[in-house]
C-alpha cells in the first residue's frame, strides 16, 4: 500500500498540471486565435453595447417583438436574496421547469399560456413549443410554425403589412443541416434584431 502512495501523488500532480491547467489554458489560447468571436460567447453588439449573445435566448414580452418560448429560469428575489423568483431567460442560472407529465401545475400552466396565445391569433392552432418551457430556459429558437403564429400580433403592433412580415420570418427559417440533422427553427433574437433594423432604416 505504501509503495503505491508515491506514484499516486506524483501522477495526480502531473495530470492535474497537464489536463487541469495546460490543456484548458492551451485550448483557451488556441480558441482565442482561431475562433475569437465564438470563444468569447458569440456576443452581438449594437451601437457599441452588447445586446446579447447570438446563441442565448432573451426575454421578449412587448407586443412589437416575436416572443420566445416560456422560460422556467429563476433569479434571486430582490426583496429577499435567499429566495428565488421567476426570472425568465436568466443566463446565469439555466434550468428547466422539471414539471412531470402528470403534474397539475404543468397542465394548468400550459392551459393559461394557450388561452393567452389563442386570444392573439384566434382560430389558429397554438404550436406546442410556444406553451412548453425549454430544458435550459434559454432556448434561442422557436419552430417556424410558432414564428408564423405570431405574425398577426407583431404586424398589428408595428403597423406592418402581414405579408412583408411573413416574408421576413421565412427568410429567418434555418433548415436542417444537409436536410437531415436537427429541426427547422427560427432564432428569435436574430429575427427581432432584423425587425428593429428594418424599422430603423
Amino acid at each position, binding site marked *: 500500500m505504501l509503495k503505491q502512495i508515491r506514484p499516486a501523488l506524483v*501522477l495526480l500532480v502531473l495530470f492535474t498540471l497537464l489536463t487541469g491547467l495546460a490543456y484548458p489554458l492551451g485550448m483557451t489560447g488556441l480558441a482565442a486565435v482561431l475562433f475569437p468571436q465564438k470563444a468569447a460567447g458569440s456576443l452581438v453588439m449594437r451601437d457599441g453595447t452588447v445586446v446579447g449573445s447570438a446563441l442565448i435566448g432573451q*426575454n421578449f414580452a412587448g407586443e412589437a417583438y416575436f416572443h420566445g418560448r416560456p422560460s422556467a429560469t429563476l433569479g434571486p428575489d430582490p426583496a429577499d436574496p435567499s429566495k428565488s423568483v421567476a426570472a425568465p431567460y436568466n443566463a446565469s442560472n439555466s434550468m428547466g421547469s*422539471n414539471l412531470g407529465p402528470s403534474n397539475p401545475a404543468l397542465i394548468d400552466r400550459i392551459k393559461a399560456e394557450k388561452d393567452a396565445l389563442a386570444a392573439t391569433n384566434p382560430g389558429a392552432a397554438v404550436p406546442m413549443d410556444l406553451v412548453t418551457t425549454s430544458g435550459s430556459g434559454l432556448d434561442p429558437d422557436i419552430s417556424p410554425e410558432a414564428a408564423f403564429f405570431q405574425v398577426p400580433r407583431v404586424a398589428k403592433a408595428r403597423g406592418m403589412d402581414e405579408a412583408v412580415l411573413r416574408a421576413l420570418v421565412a427568410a429567418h427559417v434555418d433548415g436542417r443541416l444537409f436536410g437531415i440533422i436537427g429541426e427547422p427553427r427560427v432564432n428569435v433574437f436574430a429575427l427581432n434584431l432584423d425587425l428593429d433594423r428594418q424599422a430603423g432604416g
Partner: protein
Amino acid sequence: MTVNGWLQIALFVAFVLALTRPLGGYMTRVFTGERTWLSPVLGPVERGFYRLAGTSEREDQHWLAYVVAMLVFNAAGFLLLYGLQRAQGMLPFNPQGMGAVPETLAFNTAVSFVTNTNWQNYGGEGTMSYLVQMSGLAVQNFLSAATGIALAVALIRGFARREAHAIGNFWVDMTRATLYVLLPISILLALFLVWQGVPQTLGPSVEATTLEGARQVIALGPMASQIAIKMLGTNGGGFMNANAAHPFENPTALSNLVQMVAIFAIGAALTNVFGRMVGNERQGFAILAAMGVLFAAGVAACYASEASGNPLVHALGIAGGNMEGKEVRFGIALSSLFAVVTTAASCGAVNAMHDSFTALGGMIPIINMELGEIIVGGVGAGLYGILLFVVIAVFIAGLMVGRTPEYVGKKIEAREVKLALLALLILPLAMLGFTAIATVLPSAVASIANPGPHGFSEILYAYTSAAANNGSAFAGLTGNTDWYNVTLGIAMFVGRFLMIVPAVAIAGSLAAKKTVPASAGTLPTDGGLFVGLLVGAILVIGGLTFFPALALGPIVEHFQILATAAHSG
C-alpha cells in the same frame, strides 16, 4: 415519429460503428505497448511520468496490487477535489468571486466526479470557480475515465492471458489511457465545439442590455475543453446547470450529434479491443450486437413515447409530441436519442430534462441505468459490466446442458460466478435500498418536486443514477440537502468500487487459468445464439429485480395520465 427522426438515429449509429474498429485497433496497440503514430511525441512524456512516479512499464501487478493502486489513486483524487472546492474563495481563476462550497455538497461532488458519476447537486455557473471546474472537476473527468478504461483492460487481460499471475500495471494503463486516448481526442473535440459556438474564455460573465432594454447577465467560462472530456469520458457533469441543453454547451444539432458519438466512441471501441486481445474480433462484435439489440429497443420505446406526447396536453387542444423540457434545435428525435445514449453509457449529460419526459419515455433511462449501464456503457465500466453478465449467461447455458461453462477458452467456475453475482447484486441493493428508506423518511420526501407516483420516480431515479454512476437526474428533486448529499455519495461510492473489486478479482482468477481448446461441446460465443442468450440473461435478471419498483413509479403514472385524460376528454 418521423422518417427524418429515424434517419438521424441511423446516422448516429453509423458513425459509432464506423469508429469502432479503427479506434479499437488503435487502443489495442496503446494498451499492449506497441508503437503508435503519437509515440514519437508522447513516448518521452510517458517515460518521464513513470520515472518521476517511480514505476515502470515492465512492472506487472497481481490483481490485488492493481486494485490497491487504483484505490489509493482515487482516494488522493477525492481529497484534492474536496480541498479545492473548500478553498476556491482563496484561489485564482475565480472572476465571479465564488465562496467555499459547503461541506456536504463538496463531499457529494468530490465522490461524484471521482466515481465518474458527475451527479450535480450544484448549479455549475453559480457555485464553482473556473479553477475548480478546470483543475478539479475536469481533471477527474480525465482520471476517472482513465481509471475505468484501465480496469476494463485489466479484465480483458484476465481472459486473454494464460497461467499468468499478473494483470498489467495500473499506473501504466491509466497513464496511457489519458495520454494516448483521452487527451488527443479531447483536443480535437474541444476545437470542433468552439467552432460550433461553445465558449472557451477565462473572462467573467458579460452584462448585456437586451433589445427590450432589460439587463441580462450571460455566464461564460472555459467550457469547450471541459465538455469535450465530459462526453468522451462518459462523465456528464455540465459546466452549466442545464448541461447539454444549454445553448452554450451544445449550440447546434451538429454539436449534439458529435457529442453523442463521443459518449459511445470509447465504450464501443473497447468491445473491439476485447475481441482483438482474446484473439477473435467476432467475440467483441457479439457483445456489441447484444448491446445494440437493447439499445435499439430503448430508442424505439423512448422516441415513440415522446413523439406520441402527453394526453393531458392534447386534451387542451394542443397537438404534437412532448416538448416540455426540450430544445427546439434538437426536437423530439434527438432529445429521445440523447436520453437513451446518455443512460446506456454512464454519461449522465442531458440535452433535455428527463423529469419532464412522458411517464414511459422517462422510464427508459431508468431501465438503462438499472441494467447497470452495459449498453456500450461508461468508458471501461460498460465493458466490465457486460462481462459480468456474460459470466452469468454462460453459467446458465452450462447448467442447461450440464457442462462446465467456458468463455473465450477459459473455464468459468464457481469462484467467477460468485464474484460476478456479488458485483451484480450490489447495484440493486444500493438503488432500491436507499430508495426504500428515502420514501419513508419525511425529510427526504420533502425534496420531491412532483406529486403522485412521479415523486417516487424522482427518488428512484436519483439513487439508480447515483449507484450506476450515471449522474443524470429527474432534476426536480432537491438533491442539495444533507440527507441526499451524503446518501447519494455513499450510493455512488458503493456502485463504483464494490463493483470494481469483484470484477478485478475475476480478472486475477481467470488470468491464472489454463486456456482450454474449443471442442464440439463448447457453446460458440461469437454468434447469434450467444447474443440472444446474453440479452435474455440481462433482461431476466434486470426484469425480476426492478419491475416492482417501476410498477410503482412510471408505469402507474402512465395509466393515471391515460385515465385522467379519458375523463377530461
